[in-house]
């Protein structure tokens, strides 16, 4: 066993997993309050990356006066705000008119929104992949045992953890978070408590989209190139992560995201040893999905629901 190689793969896998986890949270929160799969969420992730690119471009003249971490933070926060607004807008325009309709109608609409965002982005930004600016000086740090980690990886992992902790705080400790949980638990009772359902749903979409935007920027930081269709596959994989963790369960989504990131990386990194071609990385998530739905449909941390007759 080559421990250095394994450790290195784990570091790579965790940083990829962080991205899946952040996207998965949006799926899970929206599913929690509205009980549908927001198929367009992966595209919000893509828009987040492009928002980062353009925000950086616009603000570049000002960046020389501020320390690097501040400019990077600014890009991150502004992109998150832009995407939060986008998420809220999408919900208001496309999903809100469908509140009482069948899940399928909403799913089709969500596919429509997803296509609109990716092809719209193609029209606006072009289909060719674009390079992403370096937000922070990316040094490689040697760890004991021939393992290395880059500044960007550290930043991604640390910020993701911070975001997860603050999300937990918001959901567990704030009035809005409580309302979110109440709404997801029993929408009727929540409105009887005076919860403005629309406001909470908007908030949920905004929060989820902001996290997706952060994931988009982290993805762009780690892998440097962004394109209009970059959201589809990570989006679906993140959804799988949400299912793996138990849809509607916030801790589960984060766990699922990290697990899928790790598994994918390990399959590629050890493809020779386990006899699976590295090209199968994109199938990993789907195989997990099918297995989990067959054997533990409620997910690792979820509770099952049954239909009333």
């Amino acid at each position, binding site marked *: 066993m080559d421990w250095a190689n394994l450790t290195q793969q784990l570091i790579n896998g965790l940083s990829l997993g962080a991205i899946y986890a952040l996207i998965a949270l949006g799926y899970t929160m929206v599913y929690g309050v509205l009980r549908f799969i927001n198929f367009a969420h992966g595209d919000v992730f893509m828009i987040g990356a492009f928002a980062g690119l353009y925000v950086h471009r616009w603000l570049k003249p000002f960046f020389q006066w501020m320390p690097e971490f501040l400019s990077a933070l600014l890009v991150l926060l502004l992109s998150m705000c832009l995407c939060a607004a986008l998420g809220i807008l999408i919900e208001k325009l496309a999903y809100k008119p469908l509140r009482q309709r069948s899940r399928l109608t909403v799913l089709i609409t969500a596919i429509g929104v997803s296509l609109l965002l990716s092809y719209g982005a193609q029209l606006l930004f072009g289909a060719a992949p674009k390079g992403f600016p370096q937000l922070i000086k990316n040094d490689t740090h040697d760890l004991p045992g021939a393992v290395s980690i880059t500044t960007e990886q550290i930043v991604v992992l640390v910020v993701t953890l911070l975001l997860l902790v603050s999300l937990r705080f918001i959901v567990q400790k704030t009035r809005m978070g409580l309302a979110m*949980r109440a709404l997801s638990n*029993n929408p009727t009772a*929540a*409105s*009887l408590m005076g919860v*403005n359902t629309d406001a909470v749903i908007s908030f949920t979409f905004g929060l989820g989209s902001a996290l997706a935007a952060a994931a988009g920027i982290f993805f762009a930081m780690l892998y440097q190139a962004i394109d209009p269709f970059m959201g589809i596959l990570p989006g679906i994989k993140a959804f799988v992560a949400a299912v793996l963790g138990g849809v509607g369960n916030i801790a589960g989504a984060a766990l699922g995201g990290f697990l899928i990131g790790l598994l994918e990386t390990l399959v590629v990194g050890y493809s020779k040893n386990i006899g699976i071609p590295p090209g199968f990385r994109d199938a990993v998530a789907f195989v997990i999905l099918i297995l989990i739905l067959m054997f533990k449909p409620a997910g690792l941390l979820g509770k099952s629901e049954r239909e009333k007759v």
Partner: protein
Amino acid sequence: MLEIRNLHVSYGGIAALHGISLEVPAGSIVTLIGGNGAGKSSTLRAISGIAKVASGSIVFEGRDITNKPAHEIVALGLAHSPEGRMVFSNLTVLENLHMGAHLRRDRNAISSDLERIFTLFPRLKERLQQAAGTLSGGEQQMLAIARALMSKPKCLLLDEPSLGIAPILVQTIFSRIVEINRELGLTILLVEQNANLALRIASHGYVLETGRIILNDTTDSLRSNPAVRSAYLGESIPGDALANGGN
């Protein structure tokens, strides 16, 4: 305080209420009784804004609240403890109570209200950090009522507080309802299937049958009215069957 005129409600084309009118004077307990599916819950749902009113009007403290969004109605001081309790099963008892106070910003008053609630329902205090879903039916009912109280309402709508609860607890809950009315001064509209119990604590009663009000009287006279029983157990029941069965 609460006045309903000619209320019609229907679900998916099926009429649930065919024009009912009722009145709840300030400070009183009024009860709405009737068999299953008579339209009692629909009335409450319409009042609190979670069922759509087809026609008719609902006026609360002189303000027309017909078809207003539920959260605005709560803000006006009308709380609803719904049928089936609907506690937030994944949330802790304390969180459920906080949800009741969702619209309030007065932190200090909230904590003193919490204390008051604990004196009313000491059992809840013992289970503050427990998920509400793990409570017994009776405890859940207490929580549902307590939660409704946390919004500091002027008027409380109670839907079937005795439903599915052990008889011993039903007694406790009903005496608390009376306490809430007398000591906290809340106006209460009580929907009950357990007619005798409801008629005992209310001052005025309406008997509902298939979406219409068939009787409207003081509770004293309703208690001795055989038609009440017939609304529950079927028309064919002879008037004297009551006495025979009772003794």
